[in-house]
C-alpha cells in the first residue's frame, strides 16, 4: 500500500468534513450522541479514504452516501454493543457490497488500538514512515534524532514493539 500524501489527503478530509453536520444530524436522529457521532464520522472518513486507494474498487455511489452508510453501519454495531434499543435498518445494497471491506476495516480499527500502548516517538516515527512515506533523513530531522542511521535503528526497534502489541491485540480479539 502506498503511503498517503499528507497535503492532498488533508485537503480531501477538509472537503469531506463539510458533510459532518448533516451526518451528525442523521446519527443523532438514530440516537447517537454528539461525541460518538464525531468518532464515527472520522472512522467513516478513514474507511472511505482507505477504500478509495483500493485499485480494484470503483464507487457506485456518491462519497457522501458512502460515508453516511458507513456511519450508519458503525453506529448500528456500536449501539448493539452498548445494548441500546435502536430501530433502524441498513441499506441492503450497500451492505452487500461493502460488508467484507467494512468488517476488515473494523478489525483494523481494533488493531489500531494496540498502538496506543506504543511510545509517542515510536508511533510518530512509524506513522511518518509507513503512513506518509517520509524519508529517514526527514524523519530524523523531524524527531530530532542524530542522523538517519539512528532513525533507522529506531525504526527496527519500534516496528518490533508495534508488532508485539498488534499481535497481542490480535490474539485477544480472537478470544
Amino acid at each position, binding site marked *: *500500500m502506498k*503511503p*498517503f500524501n*499528507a497535503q492532498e*489527503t*488533508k485537503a480531501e*478530509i*477538509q472537503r469531506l*468534513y*463539510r458533510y*459532518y*453536520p448533516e451526518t451528525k444530524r442523521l446519527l*443523532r436522529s438514530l*440516537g447517537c*450522541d*454528539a*461525541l460518538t457521532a*464525531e468518532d464515527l464520522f*472520522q472512522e467513516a*472518513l*478513514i474507511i472511505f*479514504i*482507505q477504500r478509495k486507494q483500493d485499485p480494484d474498487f470503483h464507487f457506485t455511489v456518491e462519497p457522501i452516501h458512502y460515508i453516511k452508510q458507513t456511519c450508519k453501519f458503525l453506529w448500528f454495531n456500536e449501539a448493539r454493543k*452498548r445494548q*441500546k434499543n435502536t430501530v433502524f435498518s441498513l441499506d441492503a445494497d450497500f451492505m452487500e457490497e461493502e460488508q467484507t471491506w467494512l468488517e476488515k476495516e473494523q478489525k*483494523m480499527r481494533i*488493531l*489500531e488500538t*494496540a*498502538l496506543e500502548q506504543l511510545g509517542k516517538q515510536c*508511533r510518530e516515527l*512509524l*506513522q*511518518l*514512515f*509507513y*503512513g*506518509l512515506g517520509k524519508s529517514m533523513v526527514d524523519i530524523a530531522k523531524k524527531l530530532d534524532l542524530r542522523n538517519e542511521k539512528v532513525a533507522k535503528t529506531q*525504526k*527496527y526497534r519500534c*516496528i*518490533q514493539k*508495534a*508488532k508485539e502489541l*498488534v*499481535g497481542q491485540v*490480535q490474539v485477544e480479539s480472537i478470544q
Partner: protein
Amino acid sequence: MGTDWNKLIEQYLTGELNAEQVAQFEKELANNPGLLAELELHRQTQEVLRRSALRQLVKTGGKSYFRKKVLKYGVITLMVLGAISAGIYLVMNGKKAASEVDSVQIEAKTLQVMEKFLEFDNIDPQYFQFTGEDDVFLTESGVLLSATDESFMLDGKPYDGPALIQWQEAQEAADIVKAGLSTMSGDKLLETQGMFSMKAFTPGGKPLELSNTGVYVQVPVDEIKEGMKLFQGVKGKNGAIDWQNPKELERLPQAGDMREMDLYPPDYEPKLNELKWFKEKQKRDSLYLSFDDQNFQTSEEKNRGKQLFNMYCSTCHFKHKDGTGPKLYQVRNKWKNGGAKPNSIYDWVIDWSKAAEHDPYALMVSYYKPTAQPTFVNFKNKKGDIDAIFDYIDESVEGNSSNSNQLNLSSASLESPLPVTVEFAEDKAKWTFNTEETNGKTYVVARVQIEKHWHINSLYLPNGSFGYPTSFQVMPNKAYQLVGKPIEPKAIEVHDEVADEDLKYHEGTIVLKQEVKPLVKGNIPIQVKYAFQPCDATHCLAPYEGTFSLGGNSESGVNDHIPPSKVLAIWRPKFNGTILATRDFEKRMQAIHRTCDQKVLEVYTRSLSEPLWKKDERVVGMGYPEFKTFAAERIGAIKLHDKHAQNLTRFYESVTEILHNKGKREVAEALAKERKWDEKIKQVRQKNEIRKGVREQLNLHEEYDFNLKDVCKQLGKRVGFQMHGGGTIVNIDKYVWDATVARQSTTITDPETGKTAQIVYEPFSLEVQNALEYEKLFVYLFPKEMNSYQRLDTEQGHINYQLNGHMNYTGVVVGINETGVFLYELGEMEAKEYGLVNLKRVSDQEFRKKLLALNQNRVKKPMGILDEVNWLFTERTDYSVQRKRRDNEVFRNAVRPTVYPCAVCVADSTVEIAISK
C-alpha cells in the same frame, strides 16, 4: 537470535534487499511457517500504522474545520441573542446550570435517579449531554444554555468531567399552571417571563453543584421590560416555590478578536480612505500614534508662519538676535512703539524702499545696515502670511530656537555700523511665563530678567507716585479662579529727593506669582497681560504692554482628547478574552472617541473584571447621557482572575507609556530631521549670501580695473592722478568709477591732450517664457576679461542689463524649480533684444558641466562656480522638501480633526497654559 529476522523482514518489505538476498529470504520463508506468520504480522502492523497515520490526518483536518465552524456558529448565535434575549426567572435551589437540545440516550437507572430531583411537576424534563468541554445547548423553547469545564462542582470540588443536564421549563402560562407554580415573591405577585429549572448530574446520576463560573442561560422574551430581574426559587415547606433574591440581568459580552476590531476614532479611517492613504494597519497605527503628543495650538497658521520664516527670512534674520538683519522678535510692537505708521511694516516687507518713502520710522530702519532688505512682492496683499511669520516668531521662546546659533554675517567689511541706536523696553526686561504647583497650590509664574542698571516699578506703587506700575494680570476665565492678588518680591524703596517722590522698584531677576484655582481638570487656557516701563538712572523708555502665552503641552491629565497611545495600548491581542476585546466595547469605543474625554476611556480600561453596564452607568454619571443606551443593554462582565486583571492593567499602563514615548520620539525624530535640513539650507544660504557679497565686490572692482586700464590705454596714459599746468586735477579714476558703478556709457576727455576715451555700456534684454514656473531665475554672465562671473536677478522673467561694450561675454539663463534645472544658452553675448527665450530642462550633470565649461572660458583665471551650482541644487531640493512638508501638513491637518474631533474648540481659545492637575 542469530539472525535479526525483524530487520530482515522489514528490509524485505520495504524493498531494501538485493536480488540475491530476496531469493535467500524467500527460500527461508518457504521452509519456515513461523517466519511466514511473522511476516504476515509485520505486514499487518505496517497496515495498521498506515491507518493510524490517516486517523491523525483526519483528526487534525477535523480540528481546523471545527475552529472555523465554531467561530461562525458563535456569531450567529450571538446575533440572535442580541435581538431577542432578555430577563428570566430561574429556579435553582442554589444551582444554576445549563445544557442542551438533542435527546440523549440515558440509561434507565440513571434516569430514575434524576427524575427524583425534578422541581416542576407535570413538565417533561429535557436532558442534555455535556461532554465536559465548553458547549452550548438550545432547549425546546429556545433557551440557550452554555456550560464550560468550570461550570460544575462535585462535592465541593471542581468537576470537569461529562455531565447530564436536566432542564425543565415553564414559559407558557398553561405550563405554569400545569406545574402548579406560584408567581409569588414573598407576598408580591410577579409577572413572569418563564420559569426554569436546571440540574446537572454525573453520568452515574450523582447530582452536581454549580461553581462560581456557573452556566449561562439566555432566555428569549417578547419584550424587554424595565425592572425585569432574575429570581431564585426557594421551595417552602408546603412545596410551593417562593421567588427570592432578585438579581439584575446581564447579557454576555460578544467576544471578538482584537486583531479584527476597530478602535480608531470613527472618522479616522474613512478620512484616510478618502485621501487614498495606505491601508496597512501598521502604517495607520503609526500615523495615529504620531498625533499622540500633539500640541493643539500648532495650528495651520503657526506652521505656515514657521515655514515662511524659514523660507524667506531666516537667511538674514534671527528671532531673538540681530544678524544681517535685525531680530524679528516682537518687531510689530517695536514698530508700533517706535511711532511707525500703521501697516507700514507690511509695506516694508513687501518693498522696503516704498515704505521708507512714506514712513520716517521705516526710513530710519533702512539705515540699519547697508545690506538691503530684499523685496518680497509675493507677499503683496498677503498680510495674513506676514502676520503668520510674526506670530510664529513672537511665540517662540528664546534660546529654544534652532536659529540661535551665531554666524557672523557682516557680509563685507565695507559696511559701516548702524549709527542710530534705538532702545526698546522689552530688551531691558525679559518676561517668561510658567505654571507651578507648590503645596497643592497652583501659580501662574512670571520670571522677569531685568538688564543691569535698569529697573522696573513695583506692582503696587505708593500713593502719589507718578511711576508706571508694572502689571501682571492673569486674565479671568471660567476654567479657574484667581486667588488673591499677584505676589511680588520685596521691592526696593527709595525717596527721590529731586522729584520728591517715593520710588518702589525691582532690579535683577524677579519672580511674580498669581495663585489660581483650577475649576476644571485638564488643559486650561490662560492668558496673561503684562506691562512695564524700564528706567535707568537717566531716563525711562516707552512702556511696553504685552500679552503672553506658553505653549501648553499635552502631558497627562489632559482631558479634551483621547490620546492615541491609550487606544493603541489596549488594541493588542493581549487583551483578547477581556471585556475590551468585545464587539460591545468596540461599539462603545466610537462613543468614547466622541466624548474626547480620556477619563471615559479609563473607566473602561480600569478594573477589567467589572460588568460593562456598570462602567456604562458610571460614564453616564460623569455627564455623558448618551451612554444610557449602552447601560440599558446590560452587558455583563468577562470574568478574569484578579491576578490576571491586575497584570493586564499593569501591562496597559506600561504599554501606554511606551507607546506615548514612542510617539513622542518619532515626532521628535521627524522634527530633528526637519531641523537638520533647515540648518543645512540655512547655512548654504548664508554662504551664498557671503559669496554674493564677495562676488559683487569683485564684479565691480574687476570691471573698474578693466575700464580704467581701457581708458588709460585709449588716452595713452598711466593710471593715477595727473597734475596739470593749469592746476586742474583730472581724476580719471573717479570718472571711470562712476561710469562703472552706474553702468553708463561715458566719454572722458583728457584736457591736456584733448584725447577722448570711451566707456561703452549697451543694453541687452530678454524675457523668459513661463517665468512663473521657476522658483529661481537667474542670468549668469561670464565676462572673458574678468575672473568673476556675474549673477543677475530677473524680475518676473524680465532682464535688462548693461553690458560692457569692450568686454566679451558668454551667458546663460538658469531656472530651477522642484522638478529640475533648466537652461538657455545665450552664447557669445550681444547687446540686443533677445526677446522671449524658452529654457530647456537639462540633467544635473549636464547643468554642472555646462556652467563649469562656460566659467572656464575666460582670458583670466576664473573664480570657482562649483559652490554656486551646489547651492542651486540644494535650493532645488529644498523646494521639494518644503512642498513635502506642506503636503504633509495639509494631510495632517485634514486627518487631525478625525483624531481629535473636539480639538476645534480648543484651537479657538486664544492661549493655553497647561495646568497639569
